[in-house]
């Protein structure tokens, strides 16, 4: 949405289904437009009950300050919340830990989940809106959005920002270790550094962070998420950042190795979207049938 235009009307009337991720991204985009140009966005709710309930349950209307009355909070949902370079990020995300504790059954692991999300939002405030690369007037600097929900013994968290993207900031924040890994990965497929696309750089950046070499311990949010998947037993993380996507997935079977990789996105994301799925394996039994959501 371009804030210079007359205005935008978001017509969700015929929407039959809306995913939590879309709720989050749509809310963020509306806030971005309203923040850059007040009253530039209007819209209408879906006629169908299912998507209306999803929007309500995710706190979409509450977050945007629209609609009448107060929808009841759903205990298994972490409603959309947003912040910037706030000092109270840990307090804003504290109910994350409570839901995590209930689902994972491990208070220390739940506290680590809270810590990993805090760290991810700190990274957003520190790096994602680097003014060296940011186009003025296009984003609410420093802003992030987080939501999540619990399902049986699984947690899914989503974090989103309108920053310049990991592929842009990583060379500055990681340095030589990034280029070493990038050159190595590209050489394996017969490419050189000049051929690097966003997804190549994102994957090299994450692997560089996880190796803990190079610069002092910055940017540990994503590595914390992966470490916690390993600790809990099963899960995945998907990172879509501008033109590339990175995926890490750990199956429940301890005999199977985690898989990771990256691929280009057909449609660029105007920022960075993280979808973090973490599940516990209780008593050696797995919750059957849940597919990884990328």
């Amino acid at each position, binding site marked *: 949405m371009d804030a210079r235009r007359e205005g935008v009307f978001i017509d969700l009337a015929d929407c039959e289904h809306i995913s939590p991720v879309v709720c989050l991204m749509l809310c963020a985009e509306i806030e971005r437009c309203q923040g850059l140009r007040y009253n530039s966005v209007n819209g209408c709710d879906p006629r169908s009950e299912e998507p209306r309930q999803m929007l309500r349950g995710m706190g979409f209307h509450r977050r945007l300050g629209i609609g009448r009355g107060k929808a009841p909070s759903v205990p298994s949902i972490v409603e959309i919340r947003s912040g910037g370079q706030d000092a*109270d*990020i*840990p307090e804003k995300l*504290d109910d994350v830990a409570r839901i995590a504790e209930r689902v994972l059954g491990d208070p220390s692991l739940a*506290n680590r989940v809270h810590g990993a999300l*805090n760290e991810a939002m700190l990274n957003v405030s520190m790096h994602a809106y680097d003014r060296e690369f940011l186009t003025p007037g296009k984003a609410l600097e420093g802003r992030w959005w987080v939501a999540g929900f619990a399902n049986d013994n699984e947690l899914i968290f989503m974090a989103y920002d309108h920053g310049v993207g990991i592929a842009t900031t990583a060379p500055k924040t990681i340095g030589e270790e990034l280029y070493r890994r990038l050159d190595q990965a590209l050489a394996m497929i017969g490419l050189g550094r000049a051929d690097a696309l966003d997804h190549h750089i994102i994957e090299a950046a994450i692997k560089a962070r996880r190796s*803990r070499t190079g610069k*002092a311990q910055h940017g*540990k949010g994503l590595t*914390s998420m992966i470490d916690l998947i390993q600790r809990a037993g099963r899960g995945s993380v998907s990172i879509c950042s501008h033109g590339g996507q990175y995926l890490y997935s750990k199956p429940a079977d301890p005999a199977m190795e985690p898989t990771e990789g990256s691929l280009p996105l057909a449609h660029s994301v105007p920022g960075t979207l993280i979808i973090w799925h973490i599940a516990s394996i209780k008593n050696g039994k797995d919750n059957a049938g849940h597919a990884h959501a990328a």
Partner: protein
Amino acid sequence: MLMQREIIRIAEQFSRFPYGRYPDHGPNNGERFREEYLIPALRDGRELAVDLDGARGLGPSFLEEAFGGLVRAGFSPEQINSLIRVNSEDDPSYLEEIQSYINDAAALVGAAH
């Protein structure tokens, strides 16, 4: 006469929500904890026990800045380990994590010289 180890309970005496590295990340940052609690003890040669239990959402940035930052402030891992003991009954894995930040900071400082 045995000296008692002074106990700092982060959640009660510093903040229930320690967060971030630097003052512009918020008031309860790792740099402040290091400067106000850890460095004075090291300079005075006082033994300190840092209790992490009850602190919510501890993240790597806070811990690395607080403890790894001691090396960047000029203290050796030996000095740090001899005077500062970290306790965490809720999550003992913090101890190994903090030690890794101290060791990694020392390696980086060593590599720079």
